[in-house]
């Protein structure tokens, strides 16, 4: 099969084989392309879907994006069981194997440095949500006249707003404290933008969306810490995801920008 090369990750050489039935983003099983002491994990993808233009068009198709994202994650997950992969961003595509080799060669040093930094570490995701009020959603009828008097309405509204503000303040304090605590148990942390509830389908408003880099060996302790802080905060919900490959920590720390490839 010809086509373009989709690269999932770069790793150090590892002994174990990849799962046999692993399918890549376009159904083509990923293979290992070894170059200069590094391994690029690559599969063939059709140009009709993955060349720059069609790829961009596809990105607006949530179903397509979902399929590709899950396949990409499937490969990274499989790699995580045998090594510590350095994941590349979704949609990293090259014309052919030699393009991949050139890229690996140009960035060898930085890959090795980052792989050393991430070796044996995983990423945990922690999110804090402020639970939605118990309002039964948008008023059923196109809301003709409110029954209560104007003054009652305003008073009610003020109280709602006040308890809402209190909850937000508590949530903010809670999140700050949680982030400090967890940063203390982690080697590094990143703050992601709060998630849009429409896309996440999660109830409540997302106020903290953080990622923590934790050595595998200390993961259990980290998870316990999250579990402990979870109690005793009414109206506030904590969610934990992971372990992930260190996606959020794959970028250069703050090394001067080298224009690779």
């Amino acid at each position, binding site marked *: 099969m010809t086509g373009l090369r989709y690269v999932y990750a770069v790793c150090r050489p590892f002994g174990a084989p990849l799962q046999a039935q692993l399918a890549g983003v376009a159904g083509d099983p990923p293979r290992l392309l070894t170059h200069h002491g590094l391994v690029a994990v690559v599969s063939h993808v059709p140009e009709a879907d993955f060349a720059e233009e069609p790829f961009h068009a596809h990105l607006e198709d949530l179903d397509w994006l979902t399929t590709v994202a899950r396949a990409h994650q499937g490969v990274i997950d499989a790699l995580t069981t045998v090594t510590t992969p350095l*994941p590349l*961003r979704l949609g990293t595509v090259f014309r052919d194997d030699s393009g991949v080799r050139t890229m690996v060669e140009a960035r060898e040093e930085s890959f090795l440095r980052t792989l050393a930094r991430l070796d044996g570490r995983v990423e945990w995701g922690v999110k804090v949500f402020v639970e939605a*009020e118990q309002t039964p959603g948008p008023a059923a009828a196109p809301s003709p006249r409110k029954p209560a008097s104007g003054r009652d309405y305003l008073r009610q509204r003020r109280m709602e707003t006040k308890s809402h503000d209190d909850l937000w303040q508590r949530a903010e304090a809670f999140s700050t404290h949680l982030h400090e605590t967890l940063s203390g148990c982690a080697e590094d942390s990143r703050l992601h933008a709060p998630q849009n509830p429409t896309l996440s389908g999660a109830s409540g408003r997302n106020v903290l969306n953080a990622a923590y880099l934790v050595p595998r060996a200390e993961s259990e302790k980290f998870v316990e810490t999250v579990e402990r802080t979870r109690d005793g905060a009414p109206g506030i919900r904590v969610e934990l995801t992971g372990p992930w490959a260190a996606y*959020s920590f794959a970028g250069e720390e703050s090394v001067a920008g080298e224009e690779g490839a």
Partner: protein
Amino acid sequence: MTVVERREIALVDLLDRLLAGGVVITGDLTLRIADVDLVRIDLNALISSVNANVPSPFEELR
């Protein structure tokens, strides 16, 4: 409510990592960084188009 390892990963959590994380490589046929930022914008457009059809589950409190 415990560790969600076995639950299907939420798409948003995945996209936070796949579109905002990972090593960004420029050159050859890969998307340039500016293009990757566009991905976020496209996604926002997508979200707002979803919004138009799906009523917000929350009443806006001002």
